[in-house]
């Protein structure tokens, strides 16, 4: 039920946005993520963006995973 998937924000108009997931564009609300910009990836849950994905942190985690793998 807490299922949420990453999607790319294509356009924003007020609270409404178009978010692309796997090539399909969905209508979404960005009311819960006022900081969002076009080009950001958001986590989409039941039609609402609930978090803007932090690219820096995503890269950090991948770096950490590769470090663990190198040991």
């Amino acid at each position, binding site marked *: *039920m*807490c*299922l*949420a*998937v*990453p999607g790319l924000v294509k356009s924003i108009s007020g609270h409404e946005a178009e978010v692309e997931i796997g090539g399909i564009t969905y*209508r979404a*609300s960005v*009311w*819960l*993520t*006022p900081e969002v910009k076009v080009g950001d*990836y958001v*986590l989409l*849950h*039941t*039609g*609402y963006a*609930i*978090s803007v*994905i*932090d*690219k820096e*942190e*995503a890269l*950090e*985690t*991948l770096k*950490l*995973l*590769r470090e*663990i*793998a190198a*040991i």
Partner: protein
Amino acid sequence: MRFIDEYHNAELGKRLIDKIHRNSTRQARLMEFCGGHTVAIFKHGIRQLLPTTVEMLSGPGCPVCVTANEDLDKTIALSRLPDVIITTFGDLLRVPSSYSSLQQERAEGNDIRIVYSTLEALDIARANPERPVIFIGIGFETTAPTIAASILQAEQENMKNYYILSLHKLTPPVIKALLDSGETIINGIVCPGHVSAIIGSNPWEFIPAEYNIACAVSGFEPLDILLCISMLIEQTESEQPKLEVAYRRIVRPEGNQQAIKLMEKVFEPCPAIWRGIGSLTNSGLKLKEEYQAFDASQVFNVSPEKSREPAGCLCGDILRGVKVPLDCKLFKTACTPEHPVGPCMVSSEGTCSAYYHYRGEDE
């Protein structure tokens, strides 16, 4: 970078599993709170890849599963009111209540519609201004802010026919209740990633601080989960429980402040009844007094028959991590996804459903 494929890398996964095997020397029982984690763990075969010292337990993190029959009975009673349109997430439709299910009520002609989001429920309310549209608000902190936003939207548009039946539940109180009960040994908790996207990681501080239990917040891709388990094993082996986050691209310590603000504007904590657990103070959300005009439980007077539980169903014990589906005599016999007796077999993220679909006969 699409934030999914990167976390499916098999080579990195193997190395993480090797690391967990190297580090794990003592028995560790880890509970994944969230039903989404239960499904992901099964789907990616993670249970079989872990050393025998690491045992995964499924927790009560499936909102549909923990909704008590007496609350489900209210949704049935509301669906029988004249002119009412019930809107709900699909998961709820097939869940058996005491005497019926929304699916059965729909077959009998009541207007019950599945929506993907409250945005659609609002569309239905706009298109049917003469009819009451009730959205069944089920979900944890992940979902509650989206319901709050829909109420604020309805208020802005001065809509008079949009209502919520709030059956929302809060996750930290139930984890506390499980740990307080001491019914089952838990050495570490895989904390819910998308609940934490909203509330942040800070609310989980009590797990290591008050209960001396390992704790890490996880995402839902296989590498996220393996990283989380690896963190938990390091904590249990070193006997130094702390709060860690294996899902930092999404989860911040303070959470999503805007979502919390909207949720607190519309809702306030109230007691809630959890299947198998009972009533827990401040573990539910009800609409605040100023939003009572949107509150289906205030506006519509329904009095369902006394609720009852299905005989022999172990969903309650399974939700507490005390029993597993294989302990239930009904599992795969009287209770199947086609003919579910209890909610854990219905919901896509229910523990019984996950066992049914992913667990091999030979285990």
